[in-house]
């Protein structure tokens, strides 16, 4: 059952990414990105990461892509064809990277050794919360990220503001 769900979500993620890459319309691309991110959230669930999957849905699918769609509709006027030169460059680079990645994965899998029988996934939310607020684990990064989010909030408003005059 879990294997079947893996294939469903993996197909969703990969097909979404392919459409994002290949479709000429950026609005279609943005919606394909929604599908891809949803697929990744599903893959988190098949890996037993329940809280992370939910956070992915809320933050990425609900938040980031809505922002992206707003930006798309505010800025992009027309469909852009891919130039041949860039296309060739992209293909070559991706081919090289793919070969490198394959080597790296083979090395890693050789080191990992045979997997034992895995325990059933347990709920993770309580453990994550405890780790976030544990002084010996992730409390400092957690507080730093809180400050960062405040800075981002103010910074985004400052940068995106229309008027150039008016001081500050």
């Amino acid at each position, binding site marked *: 059952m879990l294997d079947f769900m893996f294939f469903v979500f993996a197909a969703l993620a990969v097909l979404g990414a392919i459409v994002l890459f290949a479709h000429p319309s950026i609005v279609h691309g943005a919606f394909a990105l929604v599908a891809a991110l949803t697929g990744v959230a599903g893959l988190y669930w098949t890996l037993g990461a329940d809280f992370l999957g939910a956070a992915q849905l809320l933050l990425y699918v609900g938040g*980031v892509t809505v922002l*992206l769609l707003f930006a798309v509709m505010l800025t992009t006027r027309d469909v852009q064809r891919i130039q041949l030169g860039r296309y060739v460059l992209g293909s070559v680079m991706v081919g090289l990277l793919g*070969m490198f990645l394959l080597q790296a994965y083979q090395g890693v*899998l050789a080191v990992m050794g045979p997997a*034992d029988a895995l325990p059933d996934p347990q709920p993770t939310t309580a453990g*994550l919360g405890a*780790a*976030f607020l544990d002084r010996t684990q992730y409390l400092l990064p957690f507080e730093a990220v809180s400050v960062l989010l405040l800075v981002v909030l103010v910074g985004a408003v400052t940068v995106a503001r229309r008027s150039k005059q008016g001081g500050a």
Partner: protein
Amino acid sequence: VIAPALMVAPAAAQAAQAAAQTGVSGSLSSYLAVSGVLFLLGVATILVRRNALYVLMGVELILNAANLNFVAFARFGDHGLDGQMFALFVVILAAAEAAIALAIVLRIFHDFGTIDITRTDSLRD
């Protein structure tokens, strides 16, 4: 336009096969294959498109591929919740990055009248 994707697919299949040979249970390698395909498609999107928003979406794909690796290794390598913690921080930082980057994109559009990354070549008025 599909050709790079077709180039990637055999690579993924090969990775899964290699994993089967080394004796690791097939699952980790299949997650790695999905993550690798997402990563390569993200890179391809960034390299091929000229619209700044495509670059952003490609970055999101790459971050998700990395996150998938974190979670998969945490699950199959018996590392507890650390992999998920890293992935959570990446998600938070990606949201922050997207907010700032989109503000900058709007600003660039306002100043240049386009978000073509080959035509925005100055940082001041």
